[in-house]
């Protein structure tokens, strides 16, 4: 009975995650403020970052709006608008189908419209490499794929998946943990 119940629970959870991930495409275009907030999180982590920090921007090559969102994210990072002065970043684009290009990245930004097959494997690969995954689509955090989700308008809200963080071996300052919304 218990085994059946656990199995049922597991399936239900997976179904929910899948439903969240593969829900009909909703636009979550990444705001410049989302990027600025996301990169500041590095200053609130246990690990100290220095030097040029590689930032992978994940996009879906099959969806033009995803490509343009990714380019916009990269441009914002390159321009350094609202980016903490203590840190230097170098952004590069990674197609959803080429998770192997994540190697070396410290942060991965999820561009808009990634609700297709590759996101799960990309987040898994990022987690194994200790990469901080950030998205403006909170569903990615709710599915425990992305570590952090950011909504900057109308009110700034930061969501956080303790499970995804643990899987990525990422730890944050206690103040950050107290201020964000865990999923």
């Amino acid at each position, binding site marked *: 009975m218990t085994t059946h119940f656990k199995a049922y629970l597991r399936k239900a959870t997976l179904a929910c995650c899948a439903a969240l991930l593969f829900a009909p495409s909703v636009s979550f275009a990444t705001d410049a403020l989302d990027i600025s907030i996301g990169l500041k999180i590095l200053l609130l982590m246990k690990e100290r970052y220095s030097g040029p920090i590689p930032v992978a921007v994940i996009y879906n090559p099959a969806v033009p709006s995803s490509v343009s969102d990714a380019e916009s994210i990269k441009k914002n990072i390159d321009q350094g608008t609202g980016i903490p002065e203590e840190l230097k970043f170098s952004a590069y684009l990674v197609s959803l189908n080429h998770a192997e290009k994540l190697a070396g990245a410290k942060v991965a930004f999820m561009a808009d419209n990634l609700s297709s097959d590759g996101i799960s494997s990309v987040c898994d690969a990022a987690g194994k490499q200790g990469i901080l995954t950030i998205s403006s689509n909170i569903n990615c955090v709710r599915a425990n794929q992305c570590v952090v989700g950011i909504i900057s308008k109308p009110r700034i809200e930061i969501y956080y998946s303790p499970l995804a963080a643990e899987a990525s071996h990422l730890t944050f300052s206690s103040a950050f*943990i107290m201020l964000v*919304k865990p999923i």
Partner: protein
Amino acid sequence: MKRIPLYITASVAVLAAATAAHADQSINYGVLEEMFGEPITTNVTGTPQRASDVAANITIITADQIRQAGSRSIPQIIGIYVPGMDVLQSSITAFDVGVRGYQQPYQPRLQVLIDGRQVFNDDYSHTQWSNLPVNIDDIRQIEVVKGAASALFGSNAAGGVVNIITYNLLYDQSRVASLSYGTQNMVTGDATYTQHLSDWGGIKISAGGMGGEDFGTLRPATETGFTANPQHQYVTGSSLFKVTPDLLANMEITYSNGKDNGAERGFNIGNNVDTNYSLRGGISWQTPYGLLTNNNYFNHNSELSTYFLTPNEHTVTELLVSNLEDQFRVGSANIFRLGLEYRRKSIQQLADNNVDGAIDNENKLYDNVYTVNGTWLWQITDKLSWTNSARVDHSAIYEGGTLDPNYLVQDYNHSLNAFSANSGLVYHATDADTVRATYGRGVQLPSMLQNGTDAAPIQGGIIYSAIGNPNLKPTIVENYELGYDRALPAIDSTAKFSVYYQTNKDLISPPSQIVSTRFINFTPWLTLESVNVGSSHGAGGEVELKGKSLNGFRWDASYSLSTVADAETVATTIGYNASAPESHFRLLLGYSSGSWELDTNGQYVTSTDMLRLIDNAAFTNVPVAGYASIGARIGYTINDHYTLALSGTNLTRADTLENPYPAVQRQVFLGLTGKF
């Protein structure tokens, strides 16, 4: 096999489920403020919160606002920015800050802390604002909470809390020096130097001081001698080290010395020489069960007071605080903070200042306070949160020398328990609307001097012996409040509304009640003590509209209403009724463009009618008419390092009578600040 009790299993499960807080214990206020677009505070729950989420009426004055205020006095800055706070200025450097109509010299109802360390003095229960060991240019923010906050900060926070937060040793590179000169020959000089030690620590040193001449305005004959030049010097050193990535240790040492003339606890002007030093050390430790924090400090204060009675009162007060607390999350919706605290307070009035030294030699009083406290923040839904705090203090007071024989040793040796609580609901009704409903139960314990010890100065051939009264009951303050904030993005502003009702039971009078008349060597000896004098009720509210635009303009307009109704015995002994203006209008306007910064602040307050002791006669109500005043600052940034600023207060008139104490005068300063 023996069964493990359910409550133990449940407790272990709760702890095991707690999401451990990791990494840095010291809060990086700057980054968090930038991320969330608003100031962060720990002042309401003990855990970090966004200003818009806290279940209390809080105003956070930022470093930019402090600079733009054009004043180097913290009470003046609070008075400029915080509706509902009234400042009683009784000399060029002496201030008291009253909350919502409850104003008096030696204000006992407002707890004041610097980086969490109490700088409020337990002797008479007051804050010597003129002698705080802090560089105003090193302050990141001043957090002001209105309403009873004893559940978090203890018995001195019956009316509110001011927490002064300086720049962080690990995250902020505070290197600043400033020099100013102005009217009344006032000179100020302050400097702070921070050195980071790679990423494993930092040290900071601050030093500074001021000197000047007091206002030369009219004062009663018995107080004309108290115009000695005020001065103040301080030095502080602090350090923060990462012993391991999860263990942070801090140390701090401070020294300050000051002299000022100002309103005394007896509602008269006197002179104070105040010397303080403090030592502090503590750790923050990330554990699987949350963030464990241990904080220990020792404050020593020596206060030499001189007023129309002679000789001097020399009081030595010491405070040892040690606390241990744990902050942790349970699940996604609950944050807990559990704390234990021990406080040891002692006070001594030195015998060489007592004419009856043979009887009161080396009188000393101790108070050991044991505390259990906790906070629970429940995020019920995304929009609704409920915060609850509770605190139980057990205070054991005992005589350490020979106190006044009017009471027996067993009277002085007594204990009391006090319960304080705060509860608040915060509802983000929409993205623009936030509603708060809060309740606070604050406890104001009698001051150390009100509890015991003995000062027996002689004047006019009469000994006035102000003794302690061990029978005093604590004052209980209850505060009910409803608040509403609305964001108005169309005009880049936020509107805030609040209404409150407050009750105060068993208020404690100054030591003015004559309890016995004796004769020593044919000299009459009047013994006076503090007594519980009854109740007082307050009601009112605040309305504020503030904002700033992208083109450099900023504004803050507010109106506060504070009405107080005292029982008759309160009205004749403390006189809260009309001790502060019933209506207070404030308007701040500012503009920044390029290298220039221009700010003005104006206020109009209605009349007051405070109690005052003049020429050693009986307490008298002194009506003071309403008045308007204007302050301003013009700042010019010379280059990346230096800023020149001309600023002033009370600019429209040479003298302004603000209260029954000597009128304040126009002040103008020219200052140069360098940041490196």
